[in-house]
């Protein structure tokens, strides 16, 4: 059972790193500021979520696992809102 949890952690964290990589590829390849913002906001946050998910089985206590979830929720909230703000600034700039 223990090694199964480890396997889950490795899988989730690898997927997370992969999504970060995908986000950077999007940053490099997308033609437009708004699309690059999209790649950044979506892919990187999913990557962070998967990394947090993979670290939850390895947390020392339920409180530590809760802290991981709080961090992820906070980043989701702030990233979604700031992506809106940056998108609005970008679209105003091109008028």
């Amino acid at each position, binding site marked *: 059972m223990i090694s199964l949890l480890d396997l889950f952690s490795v899988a989730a*964290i690898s997927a997370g790193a992969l999504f970060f990589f995908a986000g950077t590829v999007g940053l490099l390849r997308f033609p437009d500021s708004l699309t690059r913002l999209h790649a950044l906001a979506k892919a990187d946050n999913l990557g962070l979520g998967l990394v947090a998910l993979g670290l939850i089985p390895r947390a020392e206590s339920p409180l530590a696992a809760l802290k*991981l979830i709080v961090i992820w929720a906070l980043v989701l909230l*702030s990233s979604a809102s*700031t992506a809106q703000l940056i998108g609005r*600034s970008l679209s105003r700039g091109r008028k």
Partner: protein
Amino acid sequence: MNELLLLAAGLIVFTVAIGLARILHGPNEVERLMAVQLLGTGGIAALLLIANATNVPGVDDVALGLALLAPFATIAFVNLVDADEGAAERDLAP
């Protein structure tokens, strides 16, 4: 297992570095704003991995702090961009 976590942290820092190079090079100043977001998210992921791998106490509190400071800096930058544009509009008005 800890080496794997540190390797993942290294990979994430590496991808963040490449993204940072692209963003800071970006065509206009608003695009450079995204650097704060990128570093914030990537930095938090790397910090969580390092915290779990090296057992230094309190690193998850640093990640918590980063999660608050990245939007704080972004809001300030957005206000700056709006202030600049407001001035430009006032100058253009007859």
